[in-house]
């Protein structure tokens, strides 16, 4: 039940998306999403390490996404690694519990 189904469940580790998504929450991710909008939360691959990250889209330009954690004091995101290509986006978060 990892990332092999159209809708996947992932466990969130750590605090950079607080208060919207907290450490230990679960998110349902639609891997089939093709349309993304500003403000939506996505799961993506870190452009260098490949690690799965969860961030909010704060700008889209030419198929490149600027993503930022809600908890800006505790988040490594596009502010340090730059905008990421759409090919790095794994899916859109539909629901968190």
């Amino acid at each position: 039940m990892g990332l092999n189904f159209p809708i996947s469940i992932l466990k969130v580790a750590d605090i950079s998306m607080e208060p919207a998504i907290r450490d230990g929450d679960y998110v349902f991710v639609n891997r089939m999403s093709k349309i993304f909008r500003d403000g939506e939360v996505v799961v993506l691959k870190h452009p260098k390490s490949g690690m799965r990250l969860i961030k909010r889209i704060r700008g889209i330009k030419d198929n490149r996404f600027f993503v930022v954690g809600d908890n800006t004091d505790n988040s490594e995101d596009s502010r340090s690694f730059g905008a990421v290509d759409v090919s790095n986006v794994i899916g859109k978060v539909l629901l968190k519990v």
Partner: protein
Amino acid sequence: MQNAIRNLVKVVVSGMDRIMHFDTAYAHCDIPCGIYDPHQAQVAAHTVLRMDMLIADLAKTNDMGPDTRNKMIRYVTVKEQHAEIVKHEIRVIWGDYIKPEHIQANPQLNQLVFDIMKAASKAKQDTNTESAKDLLVKVEQFAEIFWKTKNVQTKRAKSPYPTGEEIVYPVV
């Protein structure tokens, strides 16, 4: 009611997780614990200066006995270590905490960090108190900028250390 349903779903999902071991999405890829403070760098810079002062005092004695040599080696060792602490602490804050918007708001910051690295090296290479003071001045400037990025006011005061130099404190 909505919360109750959400909590129930979470209980079910976490039960499934125990069996199926879901993958993890990380909120970040380092450990930005949020605890950053230039104080250790400031104290280390004061220590470098203090060691230069002690070295100068010791040199005036014209004593080359084993105890004097031992003291000299200890002063130089501590100076070396604390110049390295300055570099490490500044590097961590710059690399892990400082964001592009901080640079935008404080365009001198990158140059200042570069200058601190060079000043710390120079303070290692010689025993001139002026080199150590130059390092200290730059570290205190860094501290002011750091607290500014956190919207924390600072004050400069005479430090309680025997260097007699100023130190920047956050006003919290």
